[in-house]
């Protein structure tokens, strides 16, 4: 809100706030401070980009499925469950 109590945010402090920034949980005053710092700092902008790229890469990791044998076993177990508990 008031500009007075807003101290400069250092790069070292900014990297510790990056998750709160990405999660959208920063208080408005901190958010303003952080965005002002980003405007003037190539290093921190690169850091933020790297963090976003890291998160995106994690989301693209290939998923592995259950093996057909395991799936088959489960379907057999399902039959047992159906007969047993469901009559």
């Amino acid at each position, binding site marked *: 809100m008031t500009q007075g109590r807003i101290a400069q945010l250092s790069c070292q402090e900014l990297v510790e706030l990056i998750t709160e920034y990405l999660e959208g949980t920063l208080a408005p005053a901190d958010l303003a401070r952080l965005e002002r710092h980003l405007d003037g700092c190539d290093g921190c902008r690169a850091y933020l980009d*790297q963090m976003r790229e890291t998160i995106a890469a994690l989301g693209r990791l290939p998923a592995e499925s259950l093996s057909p044998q395991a799936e088959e076993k489960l379907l057999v177990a399902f039959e047992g469950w159906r007969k047993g508990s469901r009559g």
Partner: protein
Amino acid sequence: MPEQQASPGGDPDSARRPGRDEELLAALRRSDEDAFRMLVREHGPFLLRLALMHVPSRAIAEEVVQDTWLAALDGIDRFEGRSSFRTWLASIVLNKARTQGRRERRVLPFSFLGRRRAEGRDEPAVDADRFQSARDQQPGAWARPPVDWDSPVERLSSDEARRVLFEAIAILPPRQREVITMRDISGLSAAETCNALGLTATNQRVLLHRARSKVRAALEHHFQAEEPSR
């Protein structure tokens, strides 16, 4: 159907629509085998991933996932839908995988204390020596700033980069590993993750922060090794 292609830019685990689980669950309660098969396929990769965080082999992880489904079938009438089905499954699989993992560790002890310590709160996101010190002109400003990664999408999709990602996650302390797997690999929301792991919102965020910071650092290190000139 070819299984589980990684969808570029999307979340590989959640080709799911809201409401879909509910329909399938209703069918499952009527003992519909197709519904069971679809749920197993849909949630299989997610459960396998969570199990693999705690047990040393794929074979054991598959067993844990099978046990999870059996427990889910037995408990289906007790599932009240207050949490999402996926969250409920996640808490079952983690419970089983952690128990199984402890059993394995008794046989094959590995450094556990080191991991406990690493879960602590005061590890910096970036090594302190990357920043200027109190004696420098601008304390806390970058001394060695990160540089932009060239064509990040391609490079981060390489087998090499994926290996770095998997290794970086594998050496995280267990709670950090669980949180980053749920949030960033499997695409669960913060609320779902808190729910499945029994964490407060703040705690979840701290763990996510530690985990992401380390994974980013591992990638940066990897790319720097590829480009010694920079």
